[in-house]
C-alpha cells in the first residue's frame, strides 16, 4: 500500500513538472525545434535581455505590483479597522461587496472595470494605460488585505487598546505600539498576497491596459499569439528560478522563526 501511494505521488508530481522541464530544456536549444535538441546555447537568453518590449513591461509589472500592493495594504488595513467597529448590518453589507472581486470570475471583474474606464475616458480625458492598470490592481488586491486583517481583530483582546490608553498612550501611540503589532501577521500576509496576485495577473490587466503600458503577462500573451520563439522558454526558465528561490527563502525564514519561537518557549518554561 505504501509503495502504491509513493508511485501515485510520483506520477502526479511528474504530471505537474514534466511540461515545465520540457520548457526549460528547450530554452537552451540552438534551433527553434520543440522536439530535437540540436545543441546548447544561451542565445535566447541574450535575445530576451535585448528585447525592449519585454524589459519595459517587466519594469512596469514590478512598479505596478509595488505601488498597488502598498496602497492596497494601507487602504485595506484602515478599512478593516473601520469595518470592525461597524454595526452588524452595515458590516455585513460592506463585507459582502468586498467579497465580489474574490467570488466573481476574473473576466467579469475585468470587463466591469473596462466599462467604467471607457465611461471616464469619454468624459474626463482618461487614457487606458498605467493609471487604469494601477486602479484595477488596487481594486482586486484590497479585498485580500481586508480578508487577512479582519480575523486578527477577532483574535485580539478588545480591551488592549483601552489598556494602552489607560497606561498613558495617546491614540496614535496606542495604535502603532499596541494594535498594529497584534494585527501585523495579517497585514503582512495580505501584502504578500496582493503583491504576488498583482505580479501574476493576466485577465484583469488584459481588459484594463493600454497599448503603450502593458504588464509582463499581457506581453507574454501577445508573444504566444504571434510565433514560436524560444525566448518564451528562456523567460519561463528565469521565472521558474525566481519562484523556486523565493519559496525556498520563505520556507527558510519560516522554519527559523518557528525554531526561535520554540526556543523562547522552552526558555520561558
Amino acid at each position, binding site marked *: 500500500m505504501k509503495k502504491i501511494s509513493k508511485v501515485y505521488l510520483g506520477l*502526479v508530481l511528474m504530471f505537474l513538472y514534466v*511540461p515545465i522541464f520540457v520548457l526549460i530544456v528547450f530554452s537552451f536549444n540552438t534551433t527553434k525545434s520543440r*522536439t530535437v535538441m540540436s545543441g546548447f546555447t544561451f542565445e535566447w537568453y541574450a535575445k530576451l535581455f535585448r528585447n525592449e518590449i519585454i524589459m519595459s513591461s517587466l519594469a512596469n509589472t514590478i512598479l505596478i505590483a509595488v505601488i498597488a500592493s502598498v496602497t492596497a495594504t494601507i487602504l485595506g488595513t484602515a478599512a478593516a479597522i473601520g469595518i470592525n467597529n461597524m454595526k452588524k448590518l452595515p458590516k455585513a453589507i460592506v463585507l459582502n461587496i468586498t467579497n465580489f472581486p474574490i*467570488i466573481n*470570475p476574473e473576466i*467579469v471583474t475585468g470587463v466591469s472595470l473596462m466599462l*467604467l474606464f471607457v465611461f471616464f475616458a469619454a468624459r474626463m480625458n482618461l487614457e487606458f494605460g498605467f493609471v487604469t492598470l494601477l486602479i484595477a490592481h488596487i481594486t482586486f488586491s484590497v479585498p485580500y488585505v481586508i480578508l487577512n486583517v479582519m480575523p486578527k481583530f477577532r483574535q485580539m483582546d478588545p480591551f488592549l487598546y483601552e489598556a494602552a490608553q489607560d497606561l498613558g498612550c495617546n491614540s496614535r501611540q496606542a495604535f502603532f505600539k499596541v494594535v498594529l503589532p497584534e494585527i501585523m501577521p495579517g497585514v503582512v500576509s495580505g501584502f504578500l498576497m496582493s503583491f504576488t496576485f498583482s505580479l501574476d495577473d493576466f485577465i484583469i490587466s488584459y481588459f484594463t491596459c493600454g497599448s503603450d503600458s502593458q504588464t509582463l503577462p499581457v506581453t507574454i500573451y501577445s508573444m504566444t499569439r504571434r510565433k514560436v520563439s524560444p525566448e518564451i522558454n528562456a523567460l519561463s526558465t528565469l521565472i521558474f528560478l525566481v519562484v523556486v528561490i*523565493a*519559496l525556498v527563502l520563505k520556507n527558510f525564514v519560516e522554519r527559523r522563526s518557528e525554531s526561535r519561537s520554540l526556543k523562547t518557549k522552552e526558555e520561558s518554561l
Partner: protein
Amino acid sequence: MKNKLISAPYLVWMVVFILVPLLMVAYFAFTDKDGNFTLNYVADVAQYSQIFVRSIWLAAIATVICLVISYPLAYILTGMSKNTQSTMLMLVMLPMWMNFLLRTYAWMTMLGNNGIINSIFGFFGLGPYKMLNTEGAVVLGMVYNYLPYMILPLYSVMVKIDKSVIEAASDLGCNTWNTLFRVVLPLSLPGVMSGITMVFVPAISTFIISRMLGGGGNLLIGDLIEMQFLGNAYNVNLGAAISLVLMVIILLIMTIMNQFGSDDETVLM
C-alpha cells in the same frame, strides 16, 4: 479605534470601483446603444446556449478529474511525516506561482503535431495523433492549471481529521471502505465543496486555455465575452448581458455548493 471614518477612503473606493462597475454591467445588459431599455441582448444570449452548455460540460469534466486525482493524493499526504508534508505541499504549489500562460504554452508546444509527445509516438511507429485544438486538450489544460486549487483545500480539511476517529471506526468494526465512505468522506465534505468551487469557477470562465489549446473551434463563455469587448464582434451590450448570465450561473452553483458545505470559511484560503 472607535473611529469609523478611517474606513471612509476604502468605502469610497469600493463604491466607485467595485459596486458602480458591476451596476454598469447590469445597465449595459438591459439597454441598447442609445440607452433605451431593452431585453433583446439578454434574450440574444439564448442563441449561444451551445457555448454555455459546452463551457459547463468541459468545466465539470475538468472538476471531476481534478477531484478524482486530488482526493487520494490529499489522503496520502496526511499520512506522511510533518516535514515531508510541507515539502510536498510546496512542490504542489510551486507550478501555481508560474504564470498560467506559460504553463498553458508548455502544453501547446508538447501537444502539437510535431510536438514532443507525437515524436515519442512516432518513435514507436504510431501517430501522429491530433491532440492540439481538441476538447480533450482544453480539459487537460484546465486540469493542469487548476489541480493545486483542488489539492490544497482537500488537504487542509483532511489534515484536521482526528486520526483517533478513524481508529475508532475500525475498532467498532468498519472495514477500510466503510471507514472511507462513512467517516473520512463526510468529514472532508467541506474541503470537497470548496475545491469544486475553486476549480469550477475559473474553469467555466477561462478564455485563454480554450484559445491556446482548443484552437478556434472550441469557444467557451470567456472567449465569447472577450470577443464582444476587445474582438471583432465588438458589442458591449451583448458582452455585458453574457457576463450577467455567467455571474448568475456561478452564483447559483455557489449557493448549491454552500448547501452541502459547512460555514467554515477558512477552508477557502
